[in-house]
Structure formats: structure tokens, C-alpha cells
């Protein structure tokens, strides 16, 4: 009984012990706060790494290896994928590389001119997508009309780009804030803008990444000349192919790579632009329950599609059907490494707190030598003395880590108003929201992490207290009694 009683009494009788407790408190609170913010940031980074990727991406090997060709159009593949109950939606994309120039500059003139680098063309990613805006709008109206005459039209499960990626959010500003030149109707992104050249042949519309639009000083309705190269099947040459498009608006995904170098256009238009060299390059799949079904759905698609001859069989097959995480495996690995490294480095804070406890208890053992002698004379055992000093570390860890856990969790949950208050107080912007494209500081408190940190604090405190506690138990009672 005396162990807990005396350790509790010593804890508060000697203020130096409170330093150890405060050390644990600060360490635990700082660990929880920083780890929560890091987890929030990494989670946001994970979103950024995912970008516009769908849950599952299918990239059939279209003629890369002789004799391994799959169908040129995506419909059979789409039909096969959509027939799986675990699939929410599937759509096709055609991705190709293109070149654009500054407004008013002719691409072939620039390429023909030698020596000048002033008007270098820019390489962009052309993404041909399917959008089913008309169906989305007209089908419900048609259903209502048929209902009035007693008929029933089935629900139409429209599956297009908007069901598989976050493009619609990027167009409406839901992704990361309103964009510079929003399209007039996001459901009809390639509808000609009201301000457009009336003369000449009608031109297809494109959506330009916001940063690209800004850097090139574009305006909605501008003519944008895009060039690309496609191999001539007869001559085998790679001639430059030019075409003019109308800028229908911008999108803002919040991801630098896309906003700086991507142009969306209708998949049919792009295919036509490429001379129908390719109809699609990818099929994007949205799963109903990705977290639950990702692995099984991917494996089943690999097998089924290979059996149907829609993707390659053999060793290349698995690379043709990948989850978005497999697609970004290196970047995700780097993020996870960062999280683990950060946790390890931050754990050193606990070690520092442990050293504080070690120093305070060592000092206390020296100061309390006579008390130890008295306790031994009164019938305490060396083991009991050891436990008494370990109890002091236990109270330090218990009170410090509980208070630290509460403070750290509160801080992590209230980090935004806290940061704003501190910024106002110091007159310095601590967190620049423009840099990270977040309108708040992301913070995620993970109960398991909090529990592990508290456990770590206990382990650290007891570990560092073990040496002074052991020293106390080894004291000679006579020498201790004679100590002045």
C-alpha cells in the first residue's frame, strides 16, 4: 500500500516531479497534434496523388505486341465490365499527346522556323471523354411524359466520365474552389460557348486546365490550335496533324499536373482528329464498394477479360487492369514512408520526456536516501522501494499522458481556429492556404494512434525510471540511514 501512497505524496510534495509530468504532457500533446495534422495532410496528399484516376483503370494492350491485338472499340469491353454487379459505372477514355502554341501563333510555322525559342510549343495531354449530358437531362423528362399517358420508361443508368472521375466537380468548382472561366453548363461541357467565332466551319470545343488557360492568357471562345502526330499506316511516317478548337471553359482539379497540362475534349472528336488511329486507350471503372471489393473485382476482371480476349493473356495481363493504388504505387509508398518516418522522428520527443523523468528520479533517489533507509528499517523490501519509484513514473505518465491526450486531441480538432487566433495574435500568417490549395488545415485524429502514443509514453516513462528505481533498491539501509 505504501508504494502507491508514498509515490503519490512525493509526486506533489516535490515540484520537480511536475516537470516530468509536464514533459510527458507536452510530448504526448505535440505528438498527437502533429501526427493528426500529418495524417490529415497525407490523406489530402493521397487524394491529390489519386487525382482524376478512377477506382480501376483498364488499359488493353492495343497492338503494342504483334498478335496481341484486342478490339479497337471499347464497347465490348465496357459491356463486359458493366455486367459485373460490383461495378457502379464504366466509361472509356482516349488519351494522346498534343502540342499547343501561344494564342495567334501557327504551330506549323513555329516548327518550321529554326533557332527561335521564343514561341516554343507546349506539350499537353489530350483526354477524350464520353459525356452523356443530353441523356441525363432528357430521359427524366421523357419518363415524366410517358408516365402522363400511362406508360413506364425504365430508369436509365447513364455511365460516363462524370460517374467515374471527379471532372464534374472540377468544372463546377466543388473540387477545389471556383474556376477562372467556368463552362456555361457543366453537364454539356463541349457545347459551343456563346462567345465564339461565327465564321468558317464549326469547331469542336475543348476544356483547358485553369493554369494553362491563365498562363496562355486565353479567353473563353478563343480558337486554340492543337497539333499532334499519328503514324500514317501506309507510309509509316509521323506527320504533324493540326486542328483548331474552341475554348469552352476551364476546369480546376487542384492538381498542378492536370491544371497545367491537360485538355479535355469529346472522345469522338479526338478519335477523328487522330484519324481513328485509336478509339480509346483506357476504360475507367467506378466500383460500388471500392474498399471492400477492390482486390476481388480487379482479380476477377483480369481473369474474365483475358478469357474473353479483351485484354492480353499472360504476364502483361495484370498490368492492364490496375486499381488506382497500383497505378500510383510508388507515390503512395513514399507517402506512407513519410508518415512512418515522421512518427519515428516525433517519438524522440517521448524519449526526451523519458530522460527528464530519469534525471528527476535520479536526483530524487539521491535526495531521499535517508527516507529509503527509514522505509527499509520499518520493513520495506528493496523490491517495494523499486516499485515505489516506478510508481512515481507511473503517475507522471498517467497524469501527463491523459492531460496530453486531451490537449492534443482538442488542439487537433480545433487546429483551424487555433491557427487563425495565433496568426492574428502574432500578425503572421502561419498557414498559407493558397500554397496548399486547402481552405482549412487538414487534421485527422486516429484513436488507435492516440492509444499507441499514450502507451508509448507509459513505456518510455517506466523504462527511463527503471534505472533510478533499481539504484534506490540497491541502497544499503545503514548508509541510507546515516545520509545527511
Amino acid at each position: 500500500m505504501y508504494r502507491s501512497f508514498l509515490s503519490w505524496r512525493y509526486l506533489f510534495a516535490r515540484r520537480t516531479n511536475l516537470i516530468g509530468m509536464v514533459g510527458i504532457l507536452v510530448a504526448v500533446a505535440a505528438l498527437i497534434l502533429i501526427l493528426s495534422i500529418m495524417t490529415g495532410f497525407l490523406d489530402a496528399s493521397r487524394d491529390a496523388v489519386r487525382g482524376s484516376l478512377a477506382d480501376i483503370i483498364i488499359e488493353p494492350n492495343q497492338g503494342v505486341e504483334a498478335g496481341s491485338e484486342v478490339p479497337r472499340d471499347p464497347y465490348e469491353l465496357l459491356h463486359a465490365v458493366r455486367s459485373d454487379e460490383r461495378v457502379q459505372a464504366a466509361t472509356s477514355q482516349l488519351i494522346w499527346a498534343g502540342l499547343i502554341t501561344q494564342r495567334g501563333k501557327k504551330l506549323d510555322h513555329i516548327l518550321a522556323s529554326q533557332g527561335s525559342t521564343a514561341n516554343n510549343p507546349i506539350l499537353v495531354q489530350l483526354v477524350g471523354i464520353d459525356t452523356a449530358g443530353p441523356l441525363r437531362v432528357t430521359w427524366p423528362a421523357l419518363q415524366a411524359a410517358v408516365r402522363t399517358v400511362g406508360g413506364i420508361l425504365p430508369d436509365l443508368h447513364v455511365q460516363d466520365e462524370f460517374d467515374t472521375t471527379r471532372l464534374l466537380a472540377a468544372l463546377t468548382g466543388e473540387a477545389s474552389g471556383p474556376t477562372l472561366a467556368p463552362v456555361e453548363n457543366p453537364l454539356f461541357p463541349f457545347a459551343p460557348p456563346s462567345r465564339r467565332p461565327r465564321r468558317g466551319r464549326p469547331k469542336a470545343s475543348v476544356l483547358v486546365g485553369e493554369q494553362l488557360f491563365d498562363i496562355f492568357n486565353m479567353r473563353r471562345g478563343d480558337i486554340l490550335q492543337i497539333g499532334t502526330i499519328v503514324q500514317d499506316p501506309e507510309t509509316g511516317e509521323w506527320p504533324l496533324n493540326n486542328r483548331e478548337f474552341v475554348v469552352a471553359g476551364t476546369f480546376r482539379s487542384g492538381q498542378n499536373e492536370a491544371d497545367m497540362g491537360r485538355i479535355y475534349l469529346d472522345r469522338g472528336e479526338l478519335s477523328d482528329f487522330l484519324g481513328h488511329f485509336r478509339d480509346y486507350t483506357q476504360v475507367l471503372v467506378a466500383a460500388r464498394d471500392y474498399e471492400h471489393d477492390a482486390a476481388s473485382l480487379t482479380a476477377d476482371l483480369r481473369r474474365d477479360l483475358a478469357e474473353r480476349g479483351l485484354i492480353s493473356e499472360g504476364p502483361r495481363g495484370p498490368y492492364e487492369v490496375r486499381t488506382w493504388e497500383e497505378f500510383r504505387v510508388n507515390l503512395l509508398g513514399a507517402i506512407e514512408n513519410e508518415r512512418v518516418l515522421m512518427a519515428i522522428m516525433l517519438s524522440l520527443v517521448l524519449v526526451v520526456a523519458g530522460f527528464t523523468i530519469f534525471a528527476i528520479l535520479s536526483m530524487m533517489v539521491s535526495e531521499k536516501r535517508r527516507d529509503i533507509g527509514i522505509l527499509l528499517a520499518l520493513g520495506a523490501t528493496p523490491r517495494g522501494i523499486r516499485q515505489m519509484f516506478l510508481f512515481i513514473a507511473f503517475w507522471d505518465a498517467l497524469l501527463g499522458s491523459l492531460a496530453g491526450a486531451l490537449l492534443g486531441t482538442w488542439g487537433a480538432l480545433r487546429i483551424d481556429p487555433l491557427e487563425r487566433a495565433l496568426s492574428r495574435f502574432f500578425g503572421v500568417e502561419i498557414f498559407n492556404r493558397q500554397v496548399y490549395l486547402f481552405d482549412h488545415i487538414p487534421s485527422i485524429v486516429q484513436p488507435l494512434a492516440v492509444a499507441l502514443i499514450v502507451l508509448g509514453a507509459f513505456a518510455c516513462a517506466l523504462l527511463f525510471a527503471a534505472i533510478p528505481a533499481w539504484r534506490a533498491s540497491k541502497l544499503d539501509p545503514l548508509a541510507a540511514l546515516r545520509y545527511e
Partner: protein
Amino acid sequence: MNTDPTRRDSPAPVVLRAHGIRRAFALGKARSLEILHGIDIALHRGERVALMGASGAGKSTLLHILGLLDRPDEGEIEIDGRDPWACSVAERASIRNQRLGFVFQFYHLLPELTAIENVLLPSMIARGAVDWRRSRGELRARAEHALAEFGLADRMRHKPPQLSGGERQRVAIARALFTDPELLLADEPTGNLDKATGETVLELLLAEQEKRGLSMLLVTHDSRLAAHCERVLTIEDGVIQADSAHPIPL
């Protein structure tokens, strides 16, 4: 005359017996200084014994050995028919807690505890948490009663630094007696007190010893204190030179 001082014709049973106790302390690596040269002693129930001797004669060393705070280099100790040094550390600690009571010259109270908590300390050491919770009320009442009997009713919640020397020693005596030990070992109990206070404390100590019928070994160099004891052992250069069954005449 009985030649073996550990044997005596008294009918009172022996509480503690020591035989052939030798103790030396190292002086550097090669040399050592022997303080006790084969001491034989037996303390009987209810016996009040004074251990006298000059400074450095070895009386405190002997007291510490008899109190199981120090281990002899040679010789045997027997308490209740058992050799405590053949017992486990925990059993030896239990003997110190239950059978022996210590009163030190410098009181040796824990400064962080109040007077009553200091008195309760041996009982806390003897009990686990559950047992302590069960008997706490009764023990506390006993401790309050003991302190009140010692004239410390209004000093129970005071900590040692707030008490006078005499009050501290009375608390120390109350603590030593709280577990009802069989043997009280008092090392110069009045050595740090003025004459008047010392006499009061001594009276209290002797009265309690008498009342409880416990054995007491009183270490002192003061013959006036020894005069209160029925038996006086005189130690000189680590050897008991005289063992009197009667008080030394003043």
C-alpha cells in the same frame, strides 16, 4: 556463575539471541578494521537492557546487526528460533516490520508525511492495498489514540518540520510501538534532546515498555539513562566487558 552469557536461569523466553558476532569494515582494498570481536548476547521477553560504551566501541554497529539492518561477517542471530539471515529478503523485512521497533537519535520521520501518517507507515508497509482499505479506519483510530496518549492530539496533522524535537521523538516512539513489536531497539533516543525534554521522552519510553511488557535494548553512553535499565551491557573495543543484572550505582 553462568559462563555462557547467552544462557541464563531466567524463566522469561529469549526474544533475540546472538552468538559469536563479528563485524569488520574494509579500509581500502587490503586492510580492514574489525569492530565487533565475537559478541554473545541474549535478550529476554520484558527485559530492559542498556548497551553502554564509548564512541567507536561498536554499540551502534551491534544494534544495527541485532535490528537486521546489517549482516554480521560471522556469527548467528536467532529470532523466534529462526535465523533471519537464512530467510528470504521479504521474510527478513517482515521480521523488522512485525517483531522489531526502532527509535533513532535523529527521529527519522518522513518529512512529507503528517505525524499520524508516520505512525501508520509500518502498518501500510505490512498490508496490501485491499487489506489496508479494509482496516484503515480501525488503524487510524488506533494511531489517533496512541498519539493522543503521547500528548500529541493537536499535532496529528502536523508534518515533522512543524514539530519540536520532543514531539518528533514521541511520534517516532508511537511509530515504533504501533505494530506491537517484541523488541524495541532505541539508539540514543534522548541524545538529540535537551535535558528536560529528554527526561520526558525517556519516561514515556520506559512507561510504554513496562506497560506492554516488551524487551528493549537501549543504546546510550549516558549512565543516568542506563540506570533505568535492569541489565547493563558494557561494550569496549568490540567486546562485551560487563553484563550486570542490576543497575549500575550512580
